[in-house]
């Protein structure tokens, strides 16, 4: 996956988070999706009525931890980019360029 640690791919995603992506970005996204769940993020609904990204614990069926939010919904570009950047950090061990 290291060959995909390419700032151009991060830029492409930020430019257009939805819809068709280049073959290389599509491959990176699929690889990001396929990594083990533990430590990744998921959307949750807060008691405040907003959506938040929460980290899935390493030990199954233990506490989820909020990591960013609030968001009005999960559908916007800002939300997609927030989720993408979390995945980038998890896969490459550093912040997305």
């Amino acid at each position: 996956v290291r060959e995909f640690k390419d700032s151009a791919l991060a830029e492409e995603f930020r430019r257009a988070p939805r819809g068709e992506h280049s073959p290389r970005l599509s491959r990176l996204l699929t690889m990001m999706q396929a990594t083990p769940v533990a430590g990744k993020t998921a959307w949750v609904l807060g008691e405040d009525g907003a959506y938040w990204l929460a980290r899935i614990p390493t030990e199954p069926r233990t506490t989820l931890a909020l990591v960013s939010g609030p968001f009005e919904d999960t559908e916007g570009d800002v939300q997609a980019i927030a989720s993408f950047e979390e995945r980038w950090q998890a896969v490459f061990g550093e912040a997305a360029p």
Partner: protein
Amino acid sequence: VTQIRTKHVLGYCDPWSVVVGERVSLHVSSERSDEFHLEIVRVEGDIDDVDSSERPIPHPASGTYPAHARDLPSGSYAVISDSPAWDLRDGWELSLFIKPTTPDLGKPQAIVSRGAGDHGLWLGMLSDGRIALRLGDRVLAAATPLRGYAWYSVVARWSDRHDGSLSVRPVGRWSERPQETSGRSRYEPAAGPILLAAAIGDDGTVGQHFNGCLARVELNDAGGRLIGSWDMSADHQSALLPGGGSAKQAAHLVNAPTRSIPGPSWDGTVHAPSQDPAHYDAVHFHVDDLEDAGWPADVSIETDVLKSGVYAARLTSAGETTTVPFFVRSPRDRRRPLAFLASTASYLAYGNSSMPTTSPIDEISSQSTPLLGPIAATLAQRADVAPSLYDVHTDGSPSYVVSRRRPILNHTTRGYRWVLGADLDIIALLERSNIEYDVITDEDVHREGADALAGYRCVLTGAHPEYISTEMWDGLVDFLGHGGRLVYLGGNGFYWRVSHPADRPWLMECRRAEIGARYTEADMGSYYHQFGGQYGGLWRNVGRRPQELVGVGMAGDGWDDGAPYWFNDEARDPRVSFIVDGIDLDQPLGAHGKFGKGGGAAGAEIDRADFALGTPPHAVIVASSGPHSASYFQAPEETSFLHAANSGDVAPMLRADLVFFETPGGGAVVSTGSIAWAASLPTNHYDNDVARLTRNVIQRFIDAEPFTAPW
């Protein structure tokens, strides 16, 4: 920063299915209020229209009740009643085999205990994974942690000279060095039962549950005479382990630990407990096993004022609403011509699944970051609700046994278009079409066989009748053999064998042997069910192929969008004219729906006909689906080798077939072969080609006029 929204009002009904006049007991926990409000609602519509689909019924049970916050007593163990035989003041020797599966759980796990708290006997795992013997206030601990999933022979001794010792020897060659430890111990026997895989705490509750397997537990006195032993190789269906030795005290298994698993002597020469029970003399305990929540009944719901249908106890407490479904059947002498067969085995199999937070498959399938609503967020964080058949236990071992005597958060009439939530599209079609129907359940057919189906002209399945017991299969065959008509309105059906113990019908077992589309698989050597001893896995692999019963069988799955069906030339056969009446055969069928983003009546999991696999030779393949996307893949059992043409955009075998055939005695079968079929019923307020075709079939199938096979 806020809190994550989770569920605080939980409940379960027992049983799930009753005949009009019988009672359903309702068990509730509410964490944020000291009262809950109950309404009995009849569920008549789909999940998108809760306000009109849940119709409150005037019912004497409706009202406000005191609420309590209740715990779930999960964790399996064995309890052996107190006896003077256990006191053994002259000394004793305790020997057993253990296979810890989470030795480093981070908290103590008891393996054998007697006496509460720091008194008496305790053999177990310390927080750091070392095994230890505690006698009174003295702890004799091994030097190094044990390995996970490795068998060890353990011997603990105590003599009346106050000497204690602990010996741990690995089973098998080339493993680690044996460990021995000993020391003086001032031990006084403590009264009370012996527990295996748990201990009683100072507060009197059972805790310190153990993840792992135990075998050949024996207690000898100082003279080497066998005082107690518990036979884990006998009668795997039972919750009792026969007691041996002079005491002959049986052990009672609590919370349904896993049996019919290889013991320390298993060498692969046998694969079934019946072949050599000595190879299957172990029990696997889990900290998250749960057979029965055991909550007191808060309400006893009368059903004599109800007619057959899908109902729910609608609970409201502290501003939160939870629906707990139950099913009401008609008495034998008042059955309508049509019955909807609720797939309760599937509902139970999926119960409390936490797939989005345990498997990447959910994200890969949806190609988006998972969204955890309050139910999923609760399931992601609570192990005590016990895993589904789609999960592994907290020690990573597969989940084989599930129970309906616990709150099942995703068994709901709201917000989840899967299993029951998907079947409500079918219920809504019947209601909106003014078609009278009864509801029966898988569990009824399992228990009563053909009697549960007798009197019905037509039985409709749900969208995903995936789990079928031998008794259910036999009942359906009997029904079809006597003129019954079956409409299989789903996909990936009649797929896995399940079993229920006769004396504990709330339990269900499934072992995914060999192959199949599965999120978890049975461990090697564990392919036979503990309940009944049958070989587990795909029906296709145990001599009963779904194609023989319903004309189609699992082809594959995908999760982005479905596809329409296209009518084959055979659709113009007069034998099937009743099916396609009023439908344009030159147009795609079901190019719409609520599955995925773009709909498509053939989607999610789809089934195809195959004459070589048992589709009756006179079957008419009315329509076939396609093209499917590259995100669809053939089921593993459909291909002996993976290659670039296994995906839906290119694999010709990856399709749903809509099939019709007649059966002896005037019966017939129609199968749609798609989970997404039901999700296409609601389009245009249930006025569309899929809904019309479904109604056509039902109207003909409830007509007494017999079908005539073409032979």
